[in-house]
């Protein structure tokens, strides 16, 4: 212990955030970065809808349109919703399990910076010769050199770097949740958000290697003349689709499961009731995660896999409706008999239920292969996955942000603006995507930059674009709300919603060590159990003592920077740059390995000075 420094390194402002390994600050970094990419993806979406507002208009042109749809999809999936999920996981999961930190704080920071630099690399393609234009799925052969531009190289390199970050982030959360739970926090006492984060991390562990393998093969095809996917040289185009969807389908559940977790927390808190059927919820979550790996080929019903494969994958896909249905009914029964309040967080959670139900229903319809031959690659599919990903996931994220904002930032978001935010976004959302079901059935393929005047597709597209304005207004209102909250001087209380889980037992925002004393968990909804027993807070599981903290480090940033530079080297075939970048990263890894950094301690008396008690 004597080797440990006794004081926190004194860092502030930008330098603090560039070097932080504190999961709560990393959460804020994820939120800011994800928010910026979300705005970029949203702007792309708005341009897409404007181009399709009327038939045969020329606003952006065919090539730019393909770049817009590719970047919209890629950005939203990999760079917008994913980091916001990671933001909430980082901010909340350690608090919910009563941990002082995540298992690997350094790796956590590295995960963020890899994601960030990967995302930046991908987005610089707009200014460096054109964005990727082969769709977010980058189907070969369209994504090969012969048929698409340098943008796809940015896609391949950017996603590899960002994917590394996500993968190690997922591993970190698996270890954290398995190893860092407070005494008494058994698996079957973990809050649903932690449970869903756990399953999501498991999915990340198994799904991301598949996309990485695919991207590496595609990189070899594009950069080094490989022929994995080139049919002229004996390659196979369908292999890419398998690799992509073996990742891509679980990815959908990687995204939606945390939203399920958020809805479970929010609905139960604002109904003042424990979650109905907790154990069946856990079981359903795990089952959805498992089935998520079994059904990837339902994205490929029209690829020509044959009747047997299509039927099996179709039936397996339908099965997912069962655990999802369990969840919907459990949420309804959680509210049954409760005292339901409707702050913005719960409005989004309640709005989630019918919206996601529609998304799930169309999902079952898509699982019927013969009917899917009509739906596939049409606007019906566009409507379906936006009902799931926006109507499910984004509503869930808004609910989570309104719910946990006070915990993360110590400020309450404004409720009046919040309600406007909800209604404009909610109505705008349905206006945008509901008509798209019919557009698809009426013969509109997806990813078309225009449609002809004489095909009866005008009205649906016009309504859809109007709806997109509504969603834009909703998003702007959220940004205004963030600014209003940041400027307000009113501090949020520790437990503004009469919460049930551990994160509400400590101040808002939490101190860097989270819990002065690790709490003793005595049941599901740990804080609620204490409240009902008439206690003011959690019972501590340990005496007050020095708290060991990890040192901040600039190395995660530098390691990622090295890969970022090497990425450009690969894209421009400049192998000197590649070597410099990779050596730089390796040098940082070497430094990290040999440098002995035991962290520092926060002393007992400092804790008391701050007056923070568990």
């Amino acid at each position, binding site marked *: 212990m004597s080797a440990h420094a006794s004081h926190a390194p004194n860092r502030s402002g930008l330098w603090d955030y560039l070097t932080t390994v504190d999961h709560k600050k990393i959460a804020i970094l994820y939120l800011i970065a994800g928010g910026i990419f979300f705005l970029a993806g949203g702007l792309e979406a708005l341009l897409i809808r404007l181009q399709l507002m009327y038939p045969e208009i020329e606003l952006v042109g065919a090539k730019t349109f393909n770049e817009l749809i590719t970047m919209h999809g890629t950005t939203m999936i990999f760079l917008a919703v994913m980091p916001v999920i990671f933001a909430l996981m980082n901010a909340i999961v350690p608090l919910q399990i009563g941990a002082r930190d995540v298992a690997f704080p350094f790796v956590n920071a590295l995960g963020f910076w890899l994601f960030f630099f990967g995302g930046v690399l991908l987005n610089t393609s707009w200014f460096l010769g054109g964005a990727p234009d082969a769709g977010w799925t980058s189907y070969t052969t369209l994504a090969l050199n012969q048929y698409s531009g340098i943008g796809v190289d940015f896609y391949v390199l950017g996603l590899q770097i960002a994917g590394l970050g996500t993968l190690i982030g997922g591993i970190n959360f698996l270890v954290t949740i398995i190893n860092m739970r407070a005494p008494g926090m058994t698996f079957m006492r973990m809050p649903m958000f932690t449970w869903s984060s756990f399953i999501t991390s498991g999915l990340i562990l198994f799904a991301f290697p598949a996309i990485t393998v695919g991207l590496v093969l595609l990189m070899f095809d594009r950069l080094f003349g490989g022929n994995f996917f080139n049919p002229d040289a004996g390659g196979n185009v369908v292999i890419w689709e398998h690799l992509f969807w073996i990742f891509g389908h679980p990815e959908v559940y990687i995204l939606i499961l945390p939203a399920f977790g958020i809805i479970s927390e929010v609905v139960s808190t604002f109904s003042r009731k424990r979650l109905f059927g907790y154990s069946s919820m856990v079981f359903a979550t795990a089952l959805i995660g498992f089935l998520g790996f079994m059904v990837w080929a339902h994205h490929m019903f029209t690829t020509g896999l044959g009747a047997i494969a299509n*039927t099996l994958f179709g039936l397996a896909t339908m099965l997912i409706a069962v655990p999802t249905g369990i969840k919907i009914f459990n949420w309804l029964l959680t509210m049954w*008999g409760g005292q339901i309040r409707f702050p913005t967080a719960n409005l989004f959670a309640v709005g989630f239920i019918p919206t996601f139900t529609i998304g799930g229903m169309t999902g079952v319809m898509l699982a019927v292969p*013969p009917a899917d031959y009509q739906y596939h690659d049409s606007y019906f599919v566009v409507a379906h996955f936006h009902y799931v990903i926006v109507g499910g996931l984004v509503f869930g994220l808004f609910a989570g942000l309104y719910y946990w904002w006070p915990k993360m930032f110590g400020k309450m978001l404004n409720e009046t603006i919040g309600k406007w935010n909800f209604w404009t976004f909610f109505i705008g959302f349905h206006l945008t995507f509901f008509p798209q079901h019919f557009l698809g059935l009426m013969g509109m393929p997806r990813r078309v930059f225009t449609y002809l005047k004489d095909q009866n597709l005008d009205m649906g597209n016009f309504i859809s674009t109007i709806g997109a304005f509504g969603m834009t207004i909703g998003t702007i209102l959220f940004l205004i709300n963030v600014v209003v909250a940041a400027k307000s001087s009113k501090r949020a209380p520790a437990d503004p919603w009469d919460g049930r889980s551990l994160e509400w037992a400590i101040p808002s925002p939490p101190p860097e060590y989270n819990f002065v004393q690790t709490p003793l968990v005595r049941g599901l909804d740990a804080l609620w159990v204490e409240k009902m027993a008439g206690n003011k807070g959690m019972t501590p599981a340990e005496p007050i003592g020095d708290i060991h903290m990890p040192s901040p480090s600039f190395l995660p940033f530098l390691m990622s920077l090295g890969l970022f530079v090497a990425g450009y080297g690969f894209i421009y075939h400049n192998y000197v740059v590649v070597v410099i970048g990779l050596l730089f990263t390796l040098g940082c890894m070497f430094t990290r390995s040999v440098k002995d950094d035991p962290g520092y301690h926060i002393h007992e008396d400092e804790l008391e000075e701050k007056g923070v008690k568990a």
Partner: protein
Amino acid sequence: MKGWQQYWRQFSLFALLALVLTGCGKDELSALKPSGPVAAMQFDLMKLSSAIMIGVFIVVMTIFTYVLIRYRKRPGQQGIPKQVEGNHALEILWTVIPFLLLIIMAIPTVTTGFALHKEYPKEEAVQVKVTAHQFWWEFEYPDLGVATAQDLVLPVGKKVQFVLSASDVKHAFWIPALGGKIDTNPGQENKMWLQADKTGIYYGKCAELCGASHALMDFKVEVMEQADFDTWVANMKGVQAKEPATATSPLAAEGQQIFDKSCLGCHAVAGKGGKMGPNLTNFADRERVAGIKAHTPQNIAEWLKDPQKMKPGNKMPNLNLDDNQVKALVEYMGTLSVSEKK
């Protein structure tokens, strides 16, 4: 949230639904207006699955609406609601019922699935080989010895067995009113059968992102009586067996000269010429120019002057033709017909 807002939301949803459902799109394009047995089977499955799902939705929304109205927090409400752990009977109920509903859906899914994947030999079906290109469609009738492009010609009421592939990138072949789509994979062959029960012109689409002009990769399906189809085949064969007819007017003759010099390298006419571009043997009979624009001399001229303008990214080079040459070519191409109607 107040009760009336709930009703209002559902009302607006159903109003929108009614609004959209009253117009199910164009007969020639919409999957909601099936014109053949394949599209009809698929439409039946859509109706079955959406009926079941709407039933589920009504149940969910009924409970949802009731709960939100009945259990919202009232002013001055005291006490803590009963903390219910769960209810095994209920949980089993909403596990078993969806399971049964899925079985109801699964049975026709399996039978239809296998029915759609049947392969018909040439005794039972017209065989058509489809090759997708950026951004046009090539159709060959190997048993009949004819080939065409952009306009697919089919006899009414007869099964058509397609064998599909692509020459460059992946495309997807889709005629919504006749049946669902299948991908055309480069380097592989897929099979699908369709049948049209009504004569007329149907719209076909490419459904898989295939490059800049993906949105413009349309084609037309001309469904005619068997006798007319036989005549069409005979005429096509007749034309393809011999040299292209000599042009009738001086202007067309001039056009033919330009065509023979500049176009035959890529485009076939009457059994002569290359296969890089669409076969133009029956060009004058086509429904559309480039698959999208009305078949008028102006549009043909516009295409010839700058092929990239109408369909960005297509493989046809700009031949830098002057106005007279374009006029001559349009005149000549107007004679490329196999039907007697013209």
